[in-house]
């Protein structure tokens, strides 16, 4: 019965503290939210905790959700998860000065075909290996669609700083991708 519910009805039942509806919400979105949390977290356990926290937070605030078409419930949950992830990163942020002096990017961009060969799990692994700030800015800008201005506000850094961090993150990821592709050729 609950599997057939549309987003609006599911949200309404969740707001009435219907335990079965809450379980259904978990079944529908937990896997995607976990992917998002893995992108923002350093390790799997942290990502799992973050995912559960985000979903519990979403259930706490479900009364504030307003249906805005198909897919809006996931979009709303995703925003909660991203905010939670950013809060966590800000709390844990290490203020370190990067000593990465080489700013020139001579690594060729991977082609579309090359990119298709790379499994999602590998991409998630490499993103997770990025330093906190690089990982966060890359996720926010390249995947979640935030602008540098929004990133600067949310992470309490400058816009230039955000752009600079993104460049470094991209460079580091490209290196990993190229390295992986080389290993695959052998």
């Amino acid at each position: 019965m609950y599997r057939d519910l549309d987003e609006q009805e599911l949200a309404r039942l969740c707001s009435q503290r219907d335990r079965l509806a809450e379980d259904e919400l978990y079944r529908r979105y937990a896997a995607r939210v976990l992917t998002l949390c893995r992108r923002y977290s350093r390790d799997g356990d942290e990502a799992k905790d973050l995912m559960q926290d985000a979903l519990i937070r979403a259930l706490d605030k479900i009364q504030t959700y307003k249906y805005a078409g198909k897919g809006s419930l996931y979009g709303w949950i995703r925003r909660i998860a991203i905010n939670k992830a950013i809060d966590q990163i800000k709390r844990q942020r290490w203020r370190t000065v990067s000593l990465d002096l080489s700013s020139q990017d001579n690594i060729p961009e991977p082609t579309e075909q090359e990119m298709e060969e790379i499994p999602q799990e590998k991409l998630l692994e490499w993103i997770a290996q990025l330093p906190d700030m690089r990982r966060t800015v890359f996720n926010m800008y390249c995947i979640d669609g935030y602008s540098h201005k929004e990133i600067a506000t949310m992470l309490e850094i400058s816009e230039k700083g955000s752009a600079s961090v993104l460049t470094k993150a991209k460079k580091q990821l490209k290196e990993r991708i190229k390295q992986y592709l080389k290993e695959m050729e052998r």
Partner: protein
Amino acid sequence: MKNWEDIVKDKLEGYESPLPEGSLAEFRARRDAAGSAAAKRSPLLWIVPTAVAAGLAAILFLRQPGEPENGAPTIQQPTTTVAVVTNSVEVVETASAQPLIAQAVVPKAIRQPADQQQEADAAIEAIEETEAATESSEEIGTAQATEGVDSAEQTVQTAQTTQTEQSGRTTISTTSPFIPDVTTSRHVNMKVGPAVGVVAGGGLVAAVAGPVLTHINDIRLSNALVPQGVGDVRQAAHADYINGDVSNNAQSALNSEDDTNPGLTPGTDPKQGTEISPTADLPEYPLYSGAPPSHYFPFRTGLSLGIPVAERLKLTTGFDYSLYRSSYYTFPKAAKYTQRVQYLGIPLRLDWTLASNRWLDVYIGGGFEPDVCLSATYADKRIDGDKLSFSLLAAGGVQFNITKWLGLYVEPELSWTAPSKNRKLETYRTVYPVMFSVSTGLRFNL
């Protein structure tokens, strides 16, 4: 043609990570726990840590002076009793009516031989026993105990007289059995002294807290009657006086600091019938020889700055101004002399954040604080201050982050003032090298 970042986005956006086994059950458990916690959650809970810390500060602040050290009882010295005394014989006779008070008016200072001390101690016990007996005898209407008091006090008088004969000096300086022998060598005092401080980002908090924090903590010292740093000559003179060498040189040195203090008039012996008046004829005791000094709660204020070093590590520094006041009373002439010593310290502490969220940080830390003496005065005259010295600090605290840059904190702190030759003035913190304080204020966070 898509660039590689867009492909990453496409590949990951719709990707569903495999959920760990049992994750739904874990989610249910956490959801139920969060639900029950949310039901109990109240904004007042945020106030609890502050209230606990404030309560702790209040307890320390309002704490009455306890039993003096060594367990010796403190006996008040009412002026009315002094007025009754005309000579040492009467002191003893008056004691039959109010034995404790009569004994207490003897100001004490001189070290006495061990056998006399034992004799006096035995007399004290006898008086205490007979006092108890007197109370009971009043109830049953008998007067037997009074004889016991008389005999006990005769014993005390004998001890005092013996002392007088041996020293050949005024008998008024004999040792009171109710005041511990304070002339023994200074012992290391590791008792933790309470203090309250304010380290504020703004002047307002300091201005409000200042008058409150100057509340006296009347600490009875069991050691040095003579504070250091007032002049070696004067100290030597005082030591001579204590040791019975009341020569002219010592006398003049004792009187040199303060013209209002006429100094000791040696040779007044009540046994020879010389009448002693509490205001005129009693020998004027040199400065410090009266009641033990009172050290007031130190007043602290300053600026505090938190500089993040790493994820959970923060360097806390700033400026720490502290004022230490001490009062010395002369007896029987009611004169009060105040010592004021001001220090400026720069605390350097590393704090480790135990828990943190948007509003609250809980942390512990340790470090040290070098401080310099800004000024030192005694009786409004400048004296030599301490040189550079150090304290070790250990603190824990709760900080409420009002804004990103500003936090209100409550911070219990334990500090140990390292013994140093540079620290020669006697203040609250030399008496209590280990000091517990509770600071509160605003901290700027970088």
